[in-house]
């Protein structure tokens, strides 16, 4: 019934010059002889034993052209011209996010982002939606720990329109009461889903353990209680305080001439008045302490596992060396956790370790998931890898693989205009030196095996890990003491309370034997 009616296409010219086609036709004819054994039995015995082919000569790779300027009101503007596709994307970052939520009002930045495009002084929510949708554009808003953003993509002939719309949404949102209520209801209903998602639960409990009561400890979307407590005033106050040009970065990327892009930004943001920002330093997160929390979800068939602790902020001299150390533990190019847990033992679909380096702090986080009954074994293997990289010098081959991945990968990170812009935004956002974009490979290659050992000893603390297991506690909790995890807390999911020092549980319930 579904017979293939494809006939083998002949050599088909599409957009190529005739002279080249003749050369190509000759090549195609030649390969008939190259594959003379075409009708041979398909067995590996006939296939040659050989080494992989050598690489072709490597081309030079430079970071693409871009330009950064600062308007007189302090707004930083970045333009990346890119003319392959007739589209332009614009992104505006405000350097304040969930970490700036008022105490007890977790979720303000997220809710603000959700309501920001739901009505301005001159446009209703449906009018904004129709304005962007009718031209085939896209508009999105959001907030993370340290930032709030609006981003848009349009075809190049709608560039002026989208700049007007973007500045209206950023500068003139009205936070109408019914729109706030609608988005609040969406957020609260969303919790009913996310608080049943083992991954989400593992993430929020892990952050809470690592960051104590530092602002990074709370979920960016807040909690059901904190979102219920947010008033419209809170959104207006956050907006009035942080949405100022001297606290913002705009990126224009795509098929628009640089001068046109700069003048459009000046047109819509040039008269945006600068204002001083509050200068409060967030409290320091607590020193790492050993704590193992089991969130009991009896219907789970797998356990979500997180282990890690506080590390360093993005602007830190050891950032590159520690990035490579964490990559050897569980990153691209050389991932010990993946090898031990998946390749060798088939205990998981994926295992990794990441460094989260934010503005005022950061952490190292290893993560995996496994079938319930294997949870304790997997946790033991994972923690042992923290010990191994701290105790033993890494194999030079592992380091060179991790380095080769980062340096070799560089051209892949400048393929699309969005990817290019993201790198420049990172540099501007973390107030790094723009020259870093050009010295990336040198900085990667400068890291030695000694450096890896030094940062592993300085920053990895396997005896003081924050550990979270979200799963069916009956399947594995009894095994924990036998594998060196003598002290742990079991908290029924229904009792979880991030605001409580015991997270809603009854504290440590067992102390069978010390680790």
């Amino acid at each position, binding site marked *: *019934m579904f*017979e293939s*009616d*494809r006939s*083998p*296409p*002949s050599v*088909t010219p*599409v*957009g*190529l010059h005739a002279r080249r086609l003749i*050369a*190509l036709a000759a090549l*195609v004819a030649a390969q008939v002889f*190259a*594959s003379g054994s*075409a009708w041979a*039995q398909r067995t*590996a015995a006939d296939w040659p*034993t050989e080494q*992989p082919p050598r*690489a*072709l000569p*490597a*081309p030079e790779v430079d970071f693409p052209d871009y330009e950064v300027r600062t308007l007189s009101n302090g707004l930083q503007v970045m333009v990346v011209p890119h003319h392959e596709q*007739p*589209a332009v994307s614009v992104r505006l970052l405000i350097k304040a996010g969930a970490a700036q939520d008022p105490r007890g009002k977790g979720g303000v930045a997220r809710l603000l982002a959700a309501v920001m495009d739901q009505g301005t002084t001159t446009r209703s929510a449906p009018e904004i*939606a129709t304005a962007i*949708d*009718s*031209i*085939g554009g896209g508009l999105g808003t959001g907030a993370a720990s340290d930032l709030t953003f609006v981003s848009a*993509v*349009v*075809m190049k002939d709608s560039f002026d329109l989208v700049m007007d719309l973007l500045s209206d949404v950023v500068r003139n949102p009205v936070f109408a009461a019914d729109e706030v209520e*609608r988005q609040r209801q*969406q957020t609260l209903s*969303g*919790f009913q*889903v996310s*608080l*049943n998602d*083992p991954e989400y639960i593992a993430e929020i409990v892990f952050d809470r353990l690592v960051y104590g009561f530092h602002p990074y400890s709370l979920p960016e979307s807040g909690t*059901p209680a904190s979102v219920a407590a947010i008033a419209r005033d809170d959104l207006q106050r956050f907006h009035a305080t942080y949405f100022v040009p001297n606290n913002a970065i705009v990126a224009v990327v795509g098929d628009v001439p640089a001068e046109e892009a700069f003048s459009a930004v000046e047109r819509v943001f040039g008269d945006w008045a600068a204002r001083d920002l509050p200068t409060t330093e967030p409290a320091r997160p607590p020193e790492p302490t050993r704590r193992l929390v089991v969130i009991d979800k*009896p*219907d789970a068939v*797998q356990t979500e596992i997180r282990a890690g602790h506080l590390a360093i902020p993005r602007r830190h001299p050891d950032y590159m060396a520690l990035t490579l150390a964490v990559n050897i533990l569980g990153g*691209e190019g050389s991932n010990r956790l993946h090898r031990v847990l998946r390749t060798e033992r*088939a205990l998981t*679909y*994926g295992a990794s370790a990441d460094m989260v380096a934010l503005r005022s702090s950061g952490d190292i986080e290893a993560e995996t998931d496994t079938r319930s009954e294997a949870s304790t074994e997997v946790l033991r293997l994972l923690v042992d890898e923290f010990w191994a990289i701290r105790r033993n010098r890494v194999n030079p081959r592992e380091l060179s*693989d991790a380095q080769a991945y980062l*340096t070799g*990968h560089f*051209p*892949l990170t*400048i*393929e699309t205009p969005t990817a290019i812009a993201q790198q420049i935004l990172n540099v501007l956002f973390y107030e790094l030196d723009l020259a870093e974009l050009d010295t990336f490979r040198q900085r990667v290659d400068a890291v030695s095996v000694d450096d890896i050992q030094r940062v592993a000893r300085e920053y990895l603390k396997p005896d003081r890990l924050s550990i979270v297991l979200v799963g069916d506690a009956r399947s594995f909790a009894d095994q924990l003491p036998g594998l060196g995890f003598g002290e742990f807390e079991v908290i029924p999911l*229904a009792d979880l*309370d991030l605001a409580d020092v015991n997270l809603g549980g009854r504290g440590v319930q067992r102390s069978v034997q010390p680790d």
Partner: protein
Amino acid sequence: MVRAWAGLLMAVVVASAGVHAATRPPKFEYFITTLSNGLTVILSEDHSTPIAHVELWYHVGSKNERPGRTGFAHLFEHLMFKGSKNARPDQHTSVIASVGGLSNAYTTEDMTVFWETVPTQYLPLVLWLEADRMASLRIDEATFANERDVVKEERRMRVENQPFGRLSEIIYDQAYSVHPYKHPTIGFMADLEAASVADVRAFYETYYVPENAVLTVIGDFDIEEALGLVTQYLGRVPKATRPVPREIDAEPPQTEERRVVLTEPFPLPVVVVAYHITYDGHPDSYPLHIASKILSDGQSSRVYQRLVYEDRLALAAFGGGNIIEDPNLFFAVAIVQPGRTPAEAERALIAELDRLIDEPVSEAELRQAKNQFARDYIVGRESNQQKASQLAHAAVIHADVTTADGEFDIFMGISSDDVQRVARTYFRPENRLVLTILPAATRGTRSDRGQ
């Protein structure tokens, strides 16, 4: 046969295409040929960045699986990373990572796709690796058992341990009776357990042959040079000794409305209204794509406005066609807000689908849908990987690479009459499944707390 007249229709539409309101994406420039072993090769130059993307599509997916062996196509995809004559198990991945490249694979109902993106100078390495596993895969019992356990963890992670994780497999199980779209690509645990190394060998010999594959390479090279490399490494893979089987049981037409109510451990109730539709490339598929846009692309779309914004019936709602190689479903789904009923959500979803039958869509909505299409085309062609996927999809699923560009003009030519006509054709009560999934109480889990 149906495919052939779809192609003919396309040519007519292209020739008569009128004024474009939407911005037009630049056309692809590429070279296509077939090697003597049957491998189709598509090459395209992109000199903007010194990288190359290689994408190898095998025209086999979960709809080619035998009963009792669900999940096998995807399990086999995993095994392709477990070693061949000149590559140790997992070396394929590690070698590519060690030059800074990315590689992975995915399996759908219709195809299995292997891809690599690397700095251009490593193109010979990637082609050599792909040829090696196409010609000389080596799988022993231990490797097979190990990887089967990994896939079982993948099923637990993606399906069994996620809120709403089983939604898709419930919809397809209820909507289909015989066509293999009835079962999920990830497969069922018992079937994964039943698979053997003998199945691996048979599957490999049947489907992993050059004539069942399309190789697409895009990047910073000269086509002559790339064709030389492709021919050198993949041209020597032996030709298949027998044709690739294509027989798949067709789904009989549905003749009366199906209504099903189930309970699952979902956090909120879900309502699904699903209609059987046609296949990717059928003339009706294009107005159905337009209908999907009008229902669900952007906050101004009908389903969002009605169910999420105005009536606040749904936490999330969506309506759209899953238009793939064999006839699939057009479905509307709502996750019901606490305090609202599944019956209200069902009425609202059906009302929005009926409205497409009862009144023509406005010119403004039609123009908006076309502009959104143009945007998808344009922003869907930024990376080499995106471009390769577009070309390979046209070559494999449409058996006509020119549709990668040609479909743009078809979409621009769709009228509001076309949308109304396909709505009348497919959105009939007797062609529909109405599925209500109610939350079952789960042990120890309460959804109203947890801060």
